[in-house]
């Protein structure tokens, strides 16, 4: 016998359905707003001049964002090159070798690193890292792409360590036992058996790190000098995120300048969507493994 639903139940179910769909609504809102506000400037400037123009100077009405795109790519790549090996090796150590006590302390420390606000990283970078780079490399100013890369590398460490650890801990014990029984030492087993078995999860960790690095704004705005130059390792640079963050508050409402900043955000959003798709791909593959 099918229970008859009374109208109150139906209304309540409807309310919950709406609450459930709110997230979908938010994603649509963000996407639609970014597209609507990002398109006009691209139309006016021209897609090619916008994406591949080398000069950004709003006083001359020049809006080329190639420097920002390249800086974001180089900065993220640099952070990955520095951050991934350290994070990955730390994760192997914590997942396979560390004693429970060391592991507990390190895990607490890593969550703490993840919880530190990005402006605090920016501040420490500004006071410690930037002067140190100026001294060591004998530069007029230490605010540079290099400083931003180091700050980003530190900031992506927690995500890389946590996600890689989860993947490494999920490797079936039998795989490792078989390798050990065949005469491999523990370290050989971890790197030649456990790591390949966890490769999808580790790839997901790297992609997550890429997402974090490309989306970060406030920490790197404080250490990167913020001049819209083509990227140089020791030059003052501006990222996609910091371009939006640094000029948004000064741009006049409705001006081409402001609209161009919306278009920068749209480009950033497209990058993020690509990275999300890659992340989903790797996470799904890890589940299937």
């Amino acid at each position, binding site marked *: 016998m099918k229970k008859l639903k009374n109208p109150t139940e139906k209304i309540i179910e409807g309310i919950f359905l709406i609450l459930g769909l709110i997230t979908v609504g938010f994603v649509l809102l963000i996407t639609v707003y970014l597209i609507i506000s990002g398109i006009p400037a691209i139309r006016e400037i021209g897609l090619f001049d916008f994406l591949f123009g080398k000069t950004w100077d709003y006083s001359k009405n020049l809006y080329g964002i190639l420097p920002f795109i390249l800086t974001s790519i180089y900065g993220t790549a640099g952070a990955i090159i520095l951050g991934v090996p350290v994070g990955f090796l730390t994760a192997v150590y914590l997942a396979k070798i560390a004693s429970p006590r060391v592991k507990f302390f390190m895990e607490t420390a890593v969550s*703490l690193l993840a919880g530190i606000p990005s402006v605090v990283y920016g501040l420490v970078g500004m006071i410690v890292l930037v002067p140190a780079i100026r001294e060591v490399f004998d530069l007029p100013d230490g605010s540079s792409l290099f400083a931003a890369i180091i700050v980003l590398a530190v900031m992506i460490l927690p995500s890389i360590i946590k996600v890689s650890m989860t993947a490494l801990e999920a490797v079936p014990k039998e795989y490792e036992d078989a390798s050990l029984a065949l005469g491999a030492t523990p370290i050989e087993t971890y790197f030649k058996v456990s790591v390949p078995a966890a490769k999808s999860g580790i790839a997901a960790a790297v992609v997550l790190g890429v997402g974090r690095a490309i989306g970060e704004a406030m920490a790197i705005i404080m250490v990167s000098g913020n001049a819209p130059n083509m990227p140089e390792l020791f030059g003052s640079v501006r990222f996609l995120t910091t371009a939006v963050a640094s000029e948004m508050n000064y741009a006049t409402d409705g001006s081409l300048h402001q609209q161009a900043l919306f278009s920068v955000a749209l480009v950033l959003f497209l990058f993020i969507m690509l990275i999300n798709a890659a992340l989903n791909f790797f996470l799904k593959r890890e589940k299937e493994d």
Partner: protein
Amino acid sequence: MTAKRKIYIAAMRALMYLSAALTAGLVLFMIIYVMAKGIPNITWELLSSEPSYLTEKIGILPDILNTVYIVIATLIIVIPLGVGAAIYLTEYARNKKIVAAIEYASETLSGIPSVIYGLVGLLFFCQFMSFGRSLIAGALTLVIMNLPTVMRTTQESLKTVPQSYREGAFGLGAGKWRVILTVVLPGCVDGVITGCILSIGRILGESAALLFTAGFAHSLNGFFEGLTSSGSTLTVALYFYAKEQGEFEVAFAIAAILMVLTLIINFAAEAVSRYFEKRRAL
């Protein structure tokens, strides 16, 4: 064992220890450095006054209050939404496509960088809904950012409510809504508390999204007056004092306060999750 194997093993071992030591060293350095630079600059005067151009003194009381207001406003809005969405997913949803869409949306939301939230918040809440630069516009932006977190923690706690409880209630003749009210909602408590702690942590650390939506005024306001006026939270204030005004002593004082709060939140999250695990095991 060949020499090559021995070298490989020794090198890998050394690299691993080095990396772990580097990570641990970074955490220790951040904590000790920020505390050492910040704590000497925290004075009662700094904590209890508002900044004044006349006396050229800086006080961060307005920023502390703005942070508290924005945390309260965000949580009040995000918790019902997040809990409602989680209940829909675990108790009602039968259509797999809707579930997949909601889950995909919540994953997408957690990957979007905060500058983009700030920008959309500016366009939608400040301009379209004409809230202007205000704490409420900032709080609404943070609601979108934190919704996936609250949803996920609530969903996880709902999964631990035994199916037999629900069946028992249905068996006694309770309707769906009655079951949710009496059996499901009490099971949300763990998730809501964890979600609150994680959200507070995220709100405290947020700067980019608030910069465009909540502005950066430092005036002292009451709660309701504060919500409708522009105001900076501690993180935004830190950014301004460090980047725009070169007041590094104040910036480090705020950084030390934020660091202590981060430590507290981390331990609270840890303690709460352990407490709930223990209770579930009983």
